[in-house]
């Protein structure tokens, strides 16, 4: 089992009367890229939020890198080595692009000053340009605040942030939803690079083509439950849609949904 | 001639009477201008106002101190700029060491609370309650020196042999306010305890207490109520038989006196450094004189 990077057992989240996630048993091997698909409201983002400690789960276990974990917040998850692009992006509107890219891990000088250490603006700006380049996005002035960026520009900043730092696991929740044709293919290249480097990935996406192009395995959520776990080679778009819509349910998931 | 005056608080009842005394007196004088500032109960603001007067080049300054302990800094500022300074109504702490060209026209709060509480004590004795009487004390704003002093005067009177039959059930602040006094009194009443007197640091609170007691059906003949200030409202309450004791100070007289002293100092004349204006006890017998 040493090659399992993430495992969830019976992971469940209820919001008052809404059963958003029920009894999710999920495994991800080191180096593996897995897609999560499913209808709107199927519980995909809820699943991501439980793993990354954004919310506290109702019940179930999360085992990361061989250890049972109970992240008190996303800070803990990140420190454990999970990098996430959230669906809500998590950018600070009033700050500019380099500030956002380095938020929480700024480059600094004179570190003996503790919380008052100085920021190395110059270095961060240079690195920002390099990181954004990879996403193929165009931004007229990276010193403008994030609130003045277009939807796709914002998304690229969030992706560049995640891609700039090494991690044990990367999670991307619909990373290309707002992206243009060119930017999407650039981000897909970033994902391929992760694959080549052996970094595992969970990709939430509604884009069938993208999923079939990129990942090894597809997990389908429906009404808060996992209803299918399919190797890419053994399935196709139509088959997946059948699981998404509930026309089919995976053999090992009978009784679900 | 330009005189600048800094008053502790403009929306204060007693100080308003004093202010009016000043403006009325100025109207009778030729070629004298008075500029009055509201220190809004802020010590620091008052010191700044004095410095602003100095910047504007006034001929004399009158101060009704927010905090009489802060007068040293003010005296220093005025003396350094060579501008005469008169303290009014509240006695400055540096009275023994007042620099040249400074004086004060004030009254002594030790008198007010003492006159009030002692008269209540006498009235209670006259009613035959010297075997024991209980009551309540309403404090003014706890950060206000007049309030602190007047309450202290009350304890001192109750501590005297002649008045130690009086005991306080409770004391609380109603912040000089009639409204808060009404609520406070009603709260006291809801405990159902018997009592014989209510002493308040000012008339507004005494009137609030009276209104609350009357609303709860308590006869004003059974309770001694005392305030301070002798405001028109209090005098009316006194004539109506509701209020028993208040204390008058000649605030308008103090105001006018401070102006004359300031003008004299500005003209370089010799003046008395200290002018004491005493408090006067007011009871139903002499109330008419103050209306």
């Amino acid at each position, binding site marked *: 089992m040493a090659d399992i990077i993430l495992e969830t057992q019976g992971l469940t989240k209820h919001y*008052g009367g809404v059963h958003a996630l029920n009894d999710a048993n999920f495994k991800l091997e080191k180096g593996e890229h897995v897609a999560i698909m499913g209808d709107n409201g199927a519980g995909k983002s809820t699943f991501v939020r439980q793993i990354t400690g954004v919310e506290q789960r109702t019940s179930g276990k999360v085992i990361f890198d061989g250890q049972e974990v109970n992240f008190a917040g996303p800070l803990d998850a990140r420190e454990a080595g999970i990098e996430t692009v959230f669906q809500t992006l998590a950018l600070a509107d009033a700050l500019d692009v380099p500030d956002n890219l380095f938020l929480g891990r700024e480059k600094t000088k004179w570190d003996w000053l503790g919380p008052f250490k100085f920021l190395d603006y110059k270095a961060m700006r240079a690195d920002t340009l390099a990181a954004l380049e990879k996403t193929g996005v165009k931004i007229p002035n990276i010193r403008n605040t994030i609130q003045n960026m277009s939807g796709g520009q914002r998304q690229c900043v969030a992706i560049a942030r995640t891609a700039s730092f090494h991690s044990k696991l990367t999670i991307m929740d619909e990373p290309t939803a707002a992206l243009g044709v060119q930017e999407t293919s650039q981000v897909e290249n970033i994902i391929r690079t992760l694959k080549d480097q052996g970094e595992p990935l969970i990709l939430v996406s509604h884009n069938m083509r993208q999923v079939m192009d990129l990942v090894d395995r597809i997990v389908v959520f429906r009404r808060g439950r996992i209803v299918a776990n399919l190797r890419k080679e053994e399935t196709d778009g139509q088959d997946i849609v059948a699981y998404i819509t509930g026309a089919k349910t995976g053999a090992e998931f009978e009784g679900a949904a | 001639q330009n005189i600048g005056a800094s008053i502790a608080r403009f*929306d204060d009842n007693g100080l308003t009477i004093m202010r009016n005394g000043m403006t009325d007196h100025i109207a009778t004088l030729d070629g004298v201008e008075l500029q009055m500032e509201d220190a809004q109960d802020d010590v620091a603001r008052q010191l700044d106002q004095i410095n602003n007067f100095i910047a504007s080049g006034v001929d004399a300054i009158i101060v009704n101190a927010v905090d009489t302990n802060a007068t040293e800094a003010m005296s220093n500022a005025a003396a350094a700029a060579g501008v005469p300074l008169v303290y009014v109504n509240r006695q400055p702490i540096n009275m023994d060491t007042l620099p040249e060209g400074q004086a004060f026209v004030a009254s002594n709060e030790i008198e007010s609370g003492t006159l009030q509480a002692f008269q209540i004590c006498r009235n209670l004795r006259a009613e035959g309650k010297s075997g024991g009487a209980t009551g309540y004390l309403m*404090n003014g704003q706890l950060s206000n020196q007049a309030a602190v002093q007047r309450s202290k005067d009350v304890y001192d009177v109750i501590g005297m042999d002649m008045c130690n039959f009086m005991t306080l059930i409770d004391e609380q602040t109603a912040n000089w*306010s*009639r409204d808060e006094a009404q609520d406070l009194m*009603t*709260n006291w*009443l809801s*405990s159902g305890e018997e009592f014989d007197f209510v002493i308040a640091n000012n008339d507004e609170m005494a009137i609030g207490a009276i*209104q609350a007691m009357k609303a709860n059906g308590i006869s004003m003949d059974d309770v001694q109520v005392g305030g301070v200030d002798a405001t028109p409202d209090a005098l009316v309450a006194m004539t109506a038989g509701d209020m028993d004791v208040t204390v008058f100070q000649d605030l308008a007289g103090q105001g006018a006196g401070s102006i004359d002293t300031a003008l004299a100092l500005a003209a370089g004349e010799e003046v008395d450094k200290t002018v004491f204006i005493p408090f006067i006890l007011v009871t139903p017998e002499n109330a008419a004189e103050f209306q």
Partner: protein
Amino acid sequence: MSETSHGIGGLTYDRKKRSLPGEVNIFFALILIVAVFEVLGQVLPYMNGQSFLFDTQDRFDTIFNEARLRIIILQVSIIGIIALGVTQVIISGGIDLSSGPLVGATAMIVMSFAQTELVNGNPNPKAVFGEWAFDLPVLIPVVVGLLFGAMIGAINGSLIAYTRIPPFIATLGMFLICRGIAQAWTRGQPVSFPTEGFAALGKGMMPVFWFLGIAVLMHVIMRYTLHGKHTYAIGSNEDAARMSGINVNRHKVRVYMIASMLAAFAAIVLSSKNLTAQSGMGIFYELYAIAMAVIGGVSLTGGRGSIPGTVLGAMVFGVIQSGFTYIKLDAFYQLMAMGAIIIAAVVLDKVRQERAASRS
């Protein structure tokens, strides 16, 4: 419709598991505070086993100390009226700091139109205007007061809506302006001796009657009418409200006008209750009104809260104030204890909310 699950797309929703409304928490906090005072009455040696809410001396017909029940609500009724208006301002995403000074200014103005000619047979020593202003019908001062409130509210609202300056600044400016008006009106002199008609408005338990009556009205407005819905919408997301075609500017003016008219009405009741008007009246009322609303669950970031919550928030203050006098807490410590209890009440509310949110 209340029978269906309000789900769509074949999903079921378990209604039994839904969270309780926030007001329930504040209600519990209130009960808790009362219980603490009851216990203190038994425990503190000098209290001789008195009861806070119950009639231990057989003074009343019921088992309750009715005098206590009355004063608990009476003493918060006037600020409570202000808090009702402030509640909608905060829900709309704003704040109103001017309500306290507005009380002072309105009281001065109103009382000048409510004076009697004769006091105990003597001419009124505090007359502001001449002959013509004596013994006017009670409607006149009331209308004058409400119009003044409406005017101040309209200025607040227009500044906030049309120049887009922060409500904190607009109403802080108005705070100073109203203090100035209050003092300039009679140059600081109190105004007293109203007509009997005017004095009736705030007599006895009348303030409570006004407070609860207006609370019911405001609750209906906030919960069931267009005005209420738009207030929540603007507070939740002003841009969205604007893009959805709500006339946000006009709406804001209305919200601030209602708030100021309620503050003006509070001034009328207050000056009637006290039979006097003074320029310093209403000091810190704005802070207490806001605190009542927030303790009642109104969110300072807008979009969330309710009138019943604010009424309960006001009750918390009433109970605390009465409780302190009851246990004869030293005045110096009352302020500290009040501060601690305000914080504790809101913390309690938060803790219960979070627990509810993470409950299965």
